């Protein structure tokens, strides 16, 4: 499903967070959304997911504006994975993954055979089958994150929107998750902090800075040492690795002001 965003702006309590962003994601593309803390990644993702109403601009799924769509219709197209969404209570892993079937279920009926089969497949895809009956509070951070992604897959969406899904995951699970995202037919828009993961697995990268889209292109085009200096304020060198992906080596944070943080401490 093609996702098109035009002139999108969003403000939180009068403070502009996302400013005039336009993007076009082709069906099946895996796109990484990068930017430092507070650059508007989460807000942009939420606007694209239909969770926030933009103050200006439009979001289109497959060419159709979602402004008038209700939550249920959106949920049948797009699955959204929040950053560390948590619950207390005795939900089992299978219950959490089963939530992904909510948009397909009528008020009157409980889960049917299709729902159960889809949930089982989603659990298996994320290697959670053995944990299906485990209560939520007993899971590690990484297991919770994988359960959320299984839940998103159980939604059988056309597009997956994920807000820093690799948080809390160990290296192996990070790589497995990114491989999964890269291999899906679904359109994927994923906010990431790890530039190396983004460079390795995404077809395309978007770079946000102060709510504006400052770069949009292939990983090699977007990740340059000048951009890392201006946007992330780090001193980094870029080389191309054996697989042709950009490889980043950080030399340290850039001090934009002349004062070192320790100066002035008497």
């Amino acid at each position, binding site marked *: 499903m093609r996702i098109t965003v035009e002139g999108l702006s969003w403000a939180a309590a009068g403070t502009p967070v996302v400013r005039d962003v336009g993007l076009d994601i082709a069906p099946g593309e895996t796109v990484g959304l990068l930017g430092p803390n507070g650059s508007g990644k989460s807000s942009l993702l939420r606007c694209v997911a239909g969770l926030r109403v933009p103050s200006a601009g439009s979001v289109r799924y497959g060419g159709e504006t979602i402004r008038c769509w209700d939550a249920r219709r959106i*949920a049948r197209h797009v699955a959204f994975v929040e950053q560390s969404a948590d619950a207390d209570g005795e939900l089992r892993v299978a219950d959490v993954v089963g*939530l992904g079937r*909510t948009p397909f279920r009528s008020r009157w009926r409980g889960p049917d055979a299709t729902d159960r089969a889809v949930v*089982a497949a989603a659990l298996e895809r994320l290697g959670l089958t053995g944990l299906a009956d485990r209560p939520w509070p007993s899971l590690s951070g990484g297991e919770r994150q994988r359960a959320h992604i299984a839940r998103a897959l159980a939604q059988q969406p056309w597009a997956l929107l994920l807000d820093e899904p690799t948080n809390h995951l160990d290296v192996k699970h990070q790589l497995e998750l990114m491989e999964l995202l890269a291999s899906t037919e679904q359109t994927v828009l994923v906010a990431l902090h790890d530039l190396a993961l983004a460079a390795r697995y995404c077809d395309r990268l978007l770079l946000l800075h102060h709510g504006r889209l400052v770069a949009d292109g292939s990983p090699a085009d977007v990740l340059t040492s000048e951009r890392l200096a201006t946007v992330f304020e780090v001193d980094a060198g870029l080389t191309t690795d054996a697989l042709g992906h950009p490889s980043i080596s950080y030399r340290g944070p850039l001090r934009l002001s002349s004062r070192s943080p320790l100066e002035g401490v008497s």
Partner: protein
Amino acid sequence: MPADRISVRPAASAGPAASGTSAPAAVDLLRPAARGITVTAATPPAGSRAALPRPVLVLGIALVLAASVAASVRIGAADVGYADVGRAFGVRLGLDVTPLPPLADSLVWDLRLPRVLMAALVGAALAVCGAVLQAVTRNALADPYLLGVSSGASTGAVAVVVLGVGAGALGVTGGALIGALVAFGLLLALLRRSGPDSVRIALTGVVVGQLFTALTSLTLMASADADTTRAVTHWLLGSMAPARWESVAVCAVVTPLGLTVAWLCSNALDAFAFGADTASSLGIGVRGTRTLLLVVTAVLTSVAVATVGAIGFVGLIVPHGVRFLTGPRHRVLLPCSALVGAVFLVWTDALARSVLAPRELPAGVITALVGVPLFLLVLRRRGAL
């Protein structure tokens, strides 16, 4: 544009690359175009949590409720046999039975029976309201009185009893109902700008409750004598004694309606577990659903409180106890909470009228005395204590 229904396959040009035309046997989650396929593969066994199938569980508790109602009609200051209950029923069904003496008949039919039925209805309503509000506010401590409804009801009742507002026309029940609805109206008005955010609901409810509690105390201190104060205190602790057929009829209409609406929101209540954004991304109209559920719980609670006072603890502990039995999914949790709440209140009311017979204890005292140990037991078995 991909089609909106599962059963319709999207046009290959607009959707993701079409998968093969032959239906794969397994669910391929990574190929959304495959989601039109009906799954025929053997389904995994249902969760092993509930040892009993759910319909059996619900039916079982329903039978316990029926037995409890029948048994507790007999219990009280005056002993009534099953034969007497049968005779009271038989006469009204036009059967050929010897009528009871008028006094005994009135005791069974006009006092005991409405009272037991009221306890069942109120217990069901409070337990479900508690479960719903715990999910809506994502707060394990939420109970039906979180919305300030009971404080509003007491202000209304006190206004009628002490100040004589509305004279005889309103009665305590009418005054309490109006007070409860006024308090809830104030809550909704305060939430109008911010929207029903889960933390705001709880905080605003507490504020509204405090305001009306203060008004009640002020009225009592300013103008009530000792007797009125005691009467009002008794009412505040809750008692089934004022239940009559008219109030039972109102509850018998409102409670099943409210419970049905809440049950139809089960999917939404489940989806609230991870907060508003996740619920919304699962297709729940969060604002509308929350408002609807607040209105339903407020009306159910108001009707209950107006007749029998603010009976505490049922709405807090019953949902927690039932969750232990059924798991947290609201499709099963809500009906089971309703039934268990009904059983619980029927028995606590039976205790309230028989422990110190002929004197009667407020039901709220018994619910806490019985409820606290039960609750601790549940917590302990869950390993939370």
